[in-house]
């Protein structure tokens, strides 16, 4: 068998893609955990949240039956607090620094408590923010991903009239099109975008692609300021022979298809190799497995010490039955009748640490071959270099360069999120959006 769809029964698809971080089943269950929270001062969890949510406060508010206040505390710092509660790699963020870890006790399930409050807010459609009267200033935001939405929300609250230009037909960015399907559903993403926009003063225009539907120049002319939250594009090319064979796919495209089509319609191989060891690689590997692949091997150039994903994510892949091939770099892909047949890797060893302290892999003479019928490339994403260069934006290999106010080299053009940092987490993009909004507000104040 090769790459086919419809490998499983409907019920299997359903259980394979069920929520991996289920909500608390009851208020009591949430309270037991909320009451464990020590209410730390200058709390390590808050300091480990890129958006600095006042975590002890929002948890305390759950215990005092002030769930509305709790949701407000969360959204005030992170307007995607609901989505973040499902997708954040909390083991390396807030929960990772919970002081209970130092007592060899389970950390407070911060994300789950955050989900408890934010879910309630979205379900009840609580209006937690009041938009100030329109100040008659217009800002264009490009990209309705986490960075763009977060920036738009801050601006709208302050009375700016915001228009978001989004090339896809839905908002949410990679939240909707990239993150693993067992973390967030398309329905949730849609509700989240609607909830954010419900503050007023935010118009989202779908099917509007910068560089195609309009130019940056035009936006600069028609608006008082522009915010670019366009993220990054497809997966990096491997630059090895055989990359064009049938069965070699881009992880981002593969996941995009999963997120936009019914599970049974997604084709997946029987023996899949996934190249990379980041969040995207893990998501591609686990979802390939959950779609019915028999063997999935993650191939990584370095060792567990250097891997970009967290231990929790690695365990997720292992629990799904994925195999890890450490210290192997793709060398060539062999095919038969135009279809992938084998992935040949060079065995690596670790050299001395580089300037950043990370040990670089060095090729050895040994090789390893893996029989596969599908290769998923997930070795990092590449920025929209062409568009960025064409627009005259200063950049570093396609990553937009901004100053401390979030401003680019072009007057009135700001940027943030993956398009600047090259690809981090949703929560980083949300923070970038907030910072960009502050920069824009100051810019509007001094220039208009």
């Amino acid at each position: 068998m090769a790459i086919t769809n419809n490998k499983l029964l409907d019920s299997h698809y359903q259980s394979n893609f069920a929520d991996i971080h289920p909500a608390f089943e009851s208020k009591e269950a949430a309270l037991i955990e909320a009451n464990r929270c020590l209410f730390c001062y200058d709390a390590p969890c808050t300091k480990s949240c890129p958006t600095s949510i006042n975590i002890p406060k929002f948890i305390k508010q759950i215990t005092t039956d002030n769930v509305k206040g709790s949701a407000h505390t969360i959204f005030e710092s992170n307007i995607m607090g609901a989505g973040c509660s499902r997708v954040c790699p909390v083991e390396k963020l807030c929960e990772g620094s919970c002081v209970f870890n130092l007592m060899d006790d389970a950390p407070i399930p911060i994300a789950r408590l955050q989900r408890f409050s934010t879910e309630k807010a979205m379900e009840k459609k609580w209006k937690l923010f009041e938009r100030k009267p329109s100040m008659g200033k217009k800002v264009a935001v490009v990209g309705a991903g986490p960075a763009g939405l977060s920036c738009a929300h801050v601006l709208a609250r302050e009375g700016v009239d915001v228009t978001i230009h989004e090339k896809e037909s839905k908002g949410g960015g990679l939240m909707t099109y990239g993150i693993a399907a067992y973390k967030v559903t398309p329905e949730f993403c849609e509700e989240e975008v609607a909830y954010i926009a419900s503050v007023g003063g935010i118009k989202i225009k779908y099917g509007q692609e910068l560089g195609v539907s309009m130019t940056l120049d035009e936006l600069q002319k028609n608006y008082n300021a522009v915010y670019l939250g366009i993220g990054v594009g497809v997966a990096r090319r491997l630059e090895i022979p055989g990359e064009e064979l049938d069965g070699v796919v881009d992880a981002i495209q593969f996941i995009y298809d999963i997120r936009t089509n019914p599970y049974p319609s997604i084709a997946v191989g029987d023996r899949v190799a996934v190249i990379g060891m980041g969040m995207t690689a893990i998501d591609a590997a686990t979802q390939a497995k959950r779609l019915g692949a028999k063997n999935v091997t993650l191939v990584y150039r370095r060792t567990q010490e250097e891997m970009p994903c967290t231990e929790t994510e690695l365990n997720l892949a292992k629990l799904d039955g994925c195999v890890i091939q450490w210290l192997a770099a793709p060398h060539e892909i062999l095919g038969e009748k135009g279809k992938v047949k084998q992935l040949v890797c060079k065995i690596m060893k670790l050299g001395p640490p580089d300037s950043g302290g990370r040990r670089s892999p060095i090729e050895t003479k040994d090789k390893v071959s893996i029989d596969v019928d599908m290769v998923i490339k997930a070795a990092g994403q590449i920025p929209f270099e062409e568009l960025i260069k064409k627009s005259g934006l200063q950049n570093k290999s396609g990553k937009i360069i901004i100053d401390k106010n979030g401003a680019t080299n072009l007057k009135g053009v700001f940027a943030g999120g993956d398009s600047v940092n090259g690809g981090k987490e949703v929560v980083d993009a949300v923070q970038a959006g907030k910072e960009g909004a502050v920069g824009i507000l100051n810019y509007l104040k001094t220039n208009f």
Partner: protein
Amino acid sequence: MADITANFLGIKSPNPFWLASAPPTDKKVNVLRAFEAGWGGVVWKTLGSQVKNVSSRYSAMDYNGTRVMGFNNIELISDRPLDLNLREIAECVKLFPDRAMVVSLMADNTREKWHELIAQVEDTGAHGLELNFGCPHGMTERGMGAAVGQDPEIARMVVGWVMEKARIPVITKLTPNVHSVVPTGRAAVEAGSNALSLINTIQSVTGIDLDTLVPNPNVAGKSVFGGYCGPAVKPIALKMLATLAQDPITSKVPVSGIGGISTWKDAVEFILLGASNVQVCTAVMKNGFRIVEDMCEGLNNWMDDKGFKTLDDFVGRSVPNLTHWEDLDINYHIVARINPDKCVHCGLCYIACEDASHQSIRIEQGKPYNNYTIKEEECVGCNLCKLVCPVENCITMVEQRKGDEYLNWKEFQRRGLPLNDH
């Protein structure tokens, strides 16, 4: 193995744990189950003229997710027919002759009514009487319960009537709804009461329903002050108990300690402040009779560890360790010390000392963990940081005397020594 049998006024029980007069002791079925579970004795739910109860009757104070830190009730004395109670008491005494059976009484306010009730109860074979001078609600309005306990002269009179008639030992149960329990305690002892017990419940409002705005418990949209008990009242009960132990008259009789006792540790504390045995209500209402198992085992193990052979070895042992403020040693000085290996960087000590004590903790910012150290020269040794620290023995208080000799406040003043300058 230590001997935990108790002898209270000649009333023997296999352990010092009695059930206080309340719903757990109001009928044969539960009292038999209590004895089977191992309780040393019971004080039968108060008898008197039959009354009628309302619904609802209870409310509670929860704290940080812990249910029933404090408990409140607006129940009256037994609402069952007197002859039924008397018959069941007699049956229980027969079935469990080794357990203490004390009957709580609250007769109408005449000598005859008291005499009549005492005679009826003595016929059951009960071992003792407890006079309920403490119930703070419902009965006071009728001139009974706390109304008697709050006026030493009325108490003296009623105890006098009782002692004319009673042939079995009499315990007078005191109300805490007074500024001091000593005057009524003295009056009871002077009138002949063989022993005292305390505390009954404390008048309270546990809370208000924030939807209906009706205080708890809600009886058709209205409420009344209830009687408060459970863990929250233990410190108050201990203090009142200690004042009886310190008084030359009340200290002459044995005391049965009551109020917030849930564990063997609580019980030991009551005994250390002068109680000869203890009574329990709320803890059983929350968790059932089974809690007595650990109470017995824990008491036994503690006594073995301390080398105490019988309860008498430590009754009242801590009383001499309570003194007057003026006699405390001003030269004694302790300072906090944080063990950096145990510290989990929660910052609770810091913010407590900073906002509410002596700004004596140093903060060294870190990401994500701050470090905290004590400014020993500033620390006044108040204990606050240690109390709020979530890690056992992370903060310890280290002795750094200001002088070798014992120096009390009076002497300090006499010598004209300097006061704080900050």
